[in-house]
């Protein structure tokens, strides 16, 4: 099951923004190998900006991000991805001009040196719907299929850390449940995951610990048991 070893990623005093507009003020976050962590908060509070900074898509203004012992805060996105961080972005962002199979071949790598790495065949076994649609272009898929493809595409890089930004947003309940089932399976396999999502009850079942962000600052951190026990936190910070 979950192995709690040294931190895989350590974020300290992270500040970031867009142009003159600062979004993140002081983000501190540790995720250990094999953990599932979440980043919670209302819309516009800085969750996606945090994830973008971790992936090198938004350059931090200050603070450090250590991943596998390297400071990755000033590194380009492609270099960070090759160290083993994979993003399933908000809005899925599948490529409209690549087929399903091409999505799963083009970026494939065994970055975490796994004994049984994710391949296109393994993704097809995980998401059988994708196997049926393997020769369809990305823009010919339904929203749920695109989401499965975005997850599959990230998995074929065999990352140390998988980040999912609003992976269940806009999906039908039955498809959403399929995505949760997959995340459960990934957790069981020991995959380290950072999830941003709105379904707190489901996240409590899935994750080890949670971080709540409000206006670019961390306002609460704790375990699933602590979050489950205090619904006042849900109401105060998540509007539930």
């Amino acid at each position, binding site marked *: 099951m979950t192995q709690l070893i040294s931190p895989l990623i350590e974020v300290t005093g992270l500040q970031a923004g867009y142009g003159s507009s600062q979004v993140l003020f002081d983000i501190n976050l540790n995720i250990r190998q094999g953990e599932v962590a979440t980043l919670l908060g209302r819309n516009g509070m800085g969750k996606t900006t945090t994830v973008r900074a971790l*992936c*090198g*898509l938004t350059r931090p203004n200050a603070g450090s991000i250590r991943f596998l012992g390297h400071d990755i805060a000033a590194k*380009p*996105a*492609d*270099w960070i*991805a*090759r160290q083993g961080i*994979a*993003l399933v*972005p908000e809005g899925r*962002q599948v*490529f*409209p*001009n*690549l087929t399903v199979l*091409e999505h799963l*071949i*083009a*970026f494939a*790598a065994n970055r975490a040196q796994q004994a049984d790495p994710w391949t296109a065949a393994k993704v097809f076994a995980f998401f059988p719907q994708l196997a049926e649609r393997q020769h369809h272009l990305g*823009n010919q898929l339904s929203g749920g299929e695109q989401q499965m493809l975005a997850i599959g*595409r*990230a998995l074929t*890089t065999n990352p140390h850390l998988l980040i999912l930004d609003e992976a269940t947003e806009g999906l039908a309940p039955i498809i959403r449940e399929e995505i949760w089932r997959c995340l459960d399976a990934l957790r069981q396999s020991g995959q380290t995951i950072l999830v941003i999502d709105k379904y707190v009850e489901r996240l409590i079942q899935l994750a080890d610990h949670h971080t709540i962000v409000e206006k670019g600052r961390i306002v609460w951190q704790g375990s699933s048991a602590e979050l489950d026990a205090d619904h006042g936190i849900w109401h105060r910070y998540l509007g539930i």
Partner: protein
Amino acid sequence: MMTQLIIEQLLNGLQFGLMLFLLAAGLTLVFGIMDMINLSHGSLYMGGAYLGAAATQASGSFLVGLLAALVGMALIGLLLEVVLLRRLYQRDHLSQVLATFALILIANELARMIWGPQPLMLNAPEVLSGPVDLFGISYPAYRLLIIVVGLAVAGLLYWLVGHTRAGMWVRAGASNREMAQALGIDVRKLFTGIFALGAVLCALAGMLLGPLLAVQVGMGEDILILAFVVIVIGGIGSIRGALVGSLLVGMVDTLGRALLPTLLRTITSPDIAAHVGPALASVLIYLLMAAVLFWRPTGLFPARA
């Protein structure tokens, strides 16, 4: 007689379209992946023609000239991208247009200083100087060679972009550069390779068209405008769009210029047809572009859907 004319003009349109494709392929990828407007793309075409013509004159061999044009422009393309153009990616389009327009002026002046103001003569290889019999019509062998080479290069590019892993990265980068980077693709290196490949294709077009057109200062500007029309019609960032757009523009332009005055004579007086025909023919491709943009504002095969 009319059938022969149509077949001949169809072949000419195909040949012109394929040469346009060689230019448009590099241009569309540069624009599509890096969002970079490179007005100096036509100068690479001119540079290839000049290098090839000079090397052919010096060596007496068309093949040596071709090799010199391809290798020379690949190196110049690499140098240009690494030293100058990569500094422009993060700039706005106006800066890119101004900087690459400056490159056109510099390239033109350099060509004038090195080879003088007079056009350079570049002859087709002796063995291809005569006509061949094709579908019962006599067609210049050299033009046929251009069609064969153009088709072969289009096929090679289709395979490269459509069926290799590097081609998948190129398509992914053209559609969503940030996402391609987030998946580990070094888009800068990829772009350097694409730019060098684009320069080689320009050089090939310049060298092949050299014996048909004059190798002269400014030859890149006219064809650059057509190449931009092609990528707008085909959809920015799409190789398939560049091919279809090139063939459409090549055919419409060639057939329009050859047949429109004749067709007009059947509905109006020869005098009016003689005046209106060429003028109307010269704007046909722009009408085509307007029509495509009206129904498909992002072009026929946009990389970014």
